[in-house]
């Protein structure tokens, strides 16, 4: 049973479970090239959502969760602290819940040289 549930969960998560709302803009923008590591990252969504998970991967390092403590409301604009992991490529993945109950997810990447 556990194997079946794991397979279903994996299929659901791997299939890009319902990106029903698009993020309008991110800060930094997708594929941006920066001189310094930004202290914060930002999201501006098309509609209010509740962020449920944000994680950052730096080059080939394992993913680190971004602190969402205090993010307890459905909002359109979010600003979150970014851990300084030095120069390299930062890949941000996010997941959230729309007010209509739809799960959403997305990602963006930027580079610090």
């Amino acid at each position, binding site marked *: 049973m556990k194997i079946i549930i794991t397979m279903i969960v994996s299929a*659901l998560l791997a299939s890009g479970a319902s990106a029903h709302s698009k993020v309008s803009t991110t800060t930094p923008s997708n594929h941006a090239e920066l001189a310094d590591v930004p202290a914060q990252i930002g999201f501006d969504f098309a509609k209010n959502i509740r962020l449920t998970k944000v*994680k950052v991967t730096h080059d080939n390092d394992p993913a680190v969760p971004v602190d969402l403590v205090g993010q307890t409301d459905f909002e359109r604009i979010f600003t979150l602290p970014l851990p300084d992991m030095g120069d390299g490529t930062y890949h941000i993945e996010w997941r959230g819940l729309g007010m*209509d109950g739809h799960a959403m997810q997305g990602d963006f990447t930027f580079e610090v040289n």
Partner: protein
Amino acid sequence: MIRLIFWDYVKCLDARLRRFSLGLAGVAVTAAIIGFLLRGAALTGDIAGMVDREMLGLLWGTSVGEAFTYRLAGIIVISIGLYLPVIGAWVSLAGGLIALWSFTQIGHIPDQEQTGIRLLLLLHLLGVSFWVGILAPLRWLARDPEYLAVAANFGDKFGVMASGIVAVLVLAGGLMAWLILGTLSLIFTTAYGLALVGKVTLVALLLGLAAANKLRFIPAMQAGNQKAAAHLARSIELEITVITAVLVATATLTSVLALPM
């Protein structure tokens, strides 16, 4: 619905139908709970989300929680109705309507924010339920030589009604697809459109099987051909497999794939 409309044909199966319906109710409750928990997993990206109280609490406050409540309530009312005398079938029908209404609360239909399209979906689901509901009792009767004539007449009566039901299903489904997509060009250029084409193809296969049942096997059974009954039973088994594939395609369309913009 089957007990109400076809009582004369299925009364000999009453005890078996009740047990079968109760078993399906158990499957439905399990599926509803796992489905709800999986949505929690989608919010965190890992299996731990299935038991994350914060995520499940969040979901509970949205239309997902509302749909979950309707579904469980409907299934409980169906189960109670199975064992109530006299009005039991009506109680089960009411429970079925509540459970089906839960499907109008989530997916892409509520995004349209129109009550009319929700009612259209309910009508579509009622037609599907009626069709699916007939399959098990008809197969049981077809498999029992003692009930050859009953199965033939049951299948014939359903075949007459099915003509109207198929028209409603196709019209309601087509209208919903048009309201959701807005344009035909998205059908062959998006994952959502292609999945919809896959679903329609499977439904066409289903209609082919139904036509074979209605035009070949049922008339042969009415003429006393026992072999035709075996063919009908096998055709129904194939129909159940195709219907399962249609349901998988529908689940993908309504919960995994985003609407094309």
